[in-house]
C-alpha cells in the first residue's frame, strides 16, 4: 500500500515476466522430453529400413561369419510366447478383476488390489529368475512354456487392474435391472456386467500385450532363445527382443545391421498396437501403471 504507482506496476510486470518464463520452461521441458522419441524413431527408420527385406521375415539366422539370413523364427517366437502368455494370464487377470470390482470395499479385495499394484513394480528380471526357479529347474530345461509363464506373471496385475476399472465403469442400474429380472448373480456378473465392459477390458489386454511383447529380461533365463525352430512347448524358443539383444552386443557388423532391422519390426508391432488401440478408443484407453 505504501508502494508508489510506478513501483507497483513494475512489480506487476516482473511477476508477469516470471510467470511467462516459467510457462516457457514447461514448454521447453516438454520439447526436450520428446526429442529422444523422434531421434529413436528416426534412427530406427533410417538404419532399420535398410536391412528389412523379404529374407528378414522368411529366413533363419545365418551362422556366424555368413552374411544374410533373417529372424523368421524369432518373429514367430514372439507371437507364440505372447499368445501363450495371454492364454494363461488373461483369464486369471479378468477373473481377479471381476472379484476386485464385486468386492470393492472388502479387506481382502483391498489387500489384493494393493498387491497387484505393487506387483507391477517388481523388476521384470526378478520375475525371470522366479520362473527359472519354479518352472525351468523342476522341468529340467529352458522352454517356451517357462517364457510364456514369465510374461503371464507380468501381465496378470496389469489385466486385473484394468479389468476392475472397466467393470466399475458399468452403471450399477444395469446389474440391478438384470437381478430384478431374476437372472442369477453369476450370470449377471459374467454376461451382463463383464460383457458390457468387454471392449474396455480388451483394450487393456492389448496394451498389456504391447508391453510384454517388448520384454527381454524375463525371457533370458526362461525361453532362453533358439537359433532354430522350436517345435514343442518344452523347447527353448527365440523372440525378437532376445535376438535384437544378442545381435546388438555382438561384434559383427552384419548382425548389428540385423539388430536394427529387428528393432524396427519390434517397435512397429508394439507401436501399432498402442496407436491402434488409442485411435479406436479415441484416446480414452489407459493401461494401469
Amino acid at each position, binding site marked *: 500500500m505504501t508502494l508508489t504507482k510506478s513501483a507497483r506496476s513494475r512489480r506487476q510486470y516482473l511477476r508477469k515476466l516470471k510467470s511467462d518464463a516459467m510457462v516457457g520452461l*514447461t514448454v521447453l521441458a516438454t520439447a526436450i*522430453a520428446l526429442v529422444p522419441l523422434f531421434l529413436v524413431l528416426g534412427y530406427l527408420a533410417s538404419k532399420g529400413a535398410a536391412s528389412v527385406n523379404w529374407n528378414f521375415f522368411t529366413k533363419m539366422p545365418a551362422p556366424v561369419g555368413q552374411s544374410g539370413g533373417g529372424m523368421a523364427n524369432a518373429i514367430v517366437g514372439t507371437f507364440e510366447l505372447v499368445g501363450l502368455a495371454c492364454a494363461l494370464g488373461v483369464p486369471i*487377470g479378468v477373473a481377479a478383476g471381476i472379484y476386485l470390482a464385486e468386492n470393492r470395499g472388502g479387506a481382502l479385495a483391498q489387500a489384493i488390489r494393493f498387491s497387484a499394484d*505393487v506387483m507391477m513394480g517388481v*523388476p521384470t528380471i526378478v520375475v525371470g529368475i522366479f520362473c527359472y526357479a519354479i518352472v525351468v529347474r523342476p522341468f529340467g530345461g529352458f522352454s517356451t512354456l517357462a517364457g510364456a509363464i514369465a510374461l503371464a506373471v507380468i501381465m496378470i496385475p496389469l489385466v486385473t487392474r484394468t479389468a476392475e476399472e472397466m467393470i466399475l465403469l458399468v452403471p450399477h442400474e444395469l446389474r440391478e435391472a438384470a437381478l430384478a429380472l431374476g437372472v442369477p448373480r453369476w450370470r449377471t*456378473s459374467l454376461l451382463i456386467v463383464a460383457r458390457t465392459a468387454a471392449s474396455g477390458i480388451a483394450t487393456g489386454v492389448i496394451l498389456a500385450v504391447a508391453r510384454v511383447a517388448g520384454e*527381454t529380461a524375463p525371457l533370458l*533365463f526362461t525361453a532362453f532363445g533358439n537359433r532354430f525352430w522350436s517345435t514343442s512347448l518344452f523347447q527353448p524358443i527365440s523372440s525378437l527382443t532376445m535376438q535384437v539383444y544378442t545381435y546388438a*552386443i555382438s561384434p559383427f557388423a552384419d548382425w548389428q545391421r540385423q539388430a536394427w532391422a529387428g528393432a524396427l519390426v519390434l517397435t512397429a508391432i508394439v507401436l501399432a498396437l498402442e496407436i491402434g488401440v488409442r485411435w479406436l478408443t479415441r484416446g480414452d484407453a489407459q493401461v494401469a501403471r
Partner: protein
Amino acid sequence: MPRVKTRDFGVRAVGDRVFNLTTLAMALMILALLGGLTVELFSHALPSIKAFGFGFLTSTDWDPTTDLYGALPFIYGTVVSSVLALIIAVPLALGVALCLSEMAPAWLSRKIGFLVELLAAIPSVVYGLWGIFVAGPWLRDHLDPLLAKTFCFLPLFQGPQVSVSMLTASVILAIMVLPYISAVCTDVFRAVPSSQREAALALGATKWEMVRIAVLPYGVSGIIGAIILGLGRALGETIAVAMVIGNSPQISASLFMPSATLASVIANEFVEATSALNLSALFELGLVLLVLGLGLNIAARLMVYGATQRRFQKPT
C-alpha cells in the same frame, strides 16, 4: 410349484458359489504370486546368505573363480545410475506434467500426452540398441568433454571417456523413466480441485503463482510418490542398462567409467553361473532387487493413492 422353485434356487446357489470361488481363487493367485516370488528367491538365496551373511551387502569382491561374492559394486551402480537418472528426468517430467495439466489447451495436451506415452511404449532393448550405437558415442564425443572441462575439479568428471559408462546408462534410464513420472504427476495435478486454482486466480495470482500456491502444494505427496515410482522403475530396468553400462563390477568415482547394476549382472551371469554358490549369490542379488522394488513401490503407491483419491471426496 414349490419343488421346481427349490431346485431352481439350488442351481442358482451352486452357480453363484462356483463363480465366487473361481474369481476368489484367481484373485488369491496374485497374493500367491507375490508371496511365491519372495519365498522362492529367499530359499534359493539361502546358501549365499548362509555363506556370506551381512558381509554380502558390504563386500566389494565379486569373483566366481574363488567363489567369493559381494554385492556392493552392484548396489552402488544401481543406486548411482538410478539417482542420476532421476536428477535428469524429474525436472523435465514436472515440466511436462505442468505443461499438460495447466498450460496446454485440452486438445494439444491430449496429443502431447499421447506422444509422451509412446516414449514409454518403446521396448527397452530398442533403447539399449540406440544407446550403444547412437547415444553412447554422442555423449562421449560431445557431453563428456564439456562436463570434463567445466567441472574439472570434480572427480565425477575425470579420467578417460568411454561410450559405455555410468553416464550413458543414466541418460538412457532418464529417457525411460520420464514418461512414467510425468504421467503420474499429470494425474496428480489433474486431481487438484479447480476451486483451488480459481481461488488463487481470484486473488490476482499469475499463472505460475497459481501453480506454486495452489497446484504444487496440493500435489506434493503425489509428486514424491511419482518420483519414488520412477526410482523403482530405474532400479529394476535391465536390458537397456546392461547394454550401455559396460558391466564391470567396480566402484569408480568417475561417471565416465563402466559400472554394473544388480539387474545387469543377473542378466549377464545367470546362465553362465559357474557354481551353485555363484547361482545362489545371483539369486540373492535378485532378492535385494525385489526388496528394494517392493519397498519403494509400497511407499510410492500409498503416497499416490493419497494424492489422487482426494478428488472422490470433493463434494458434488
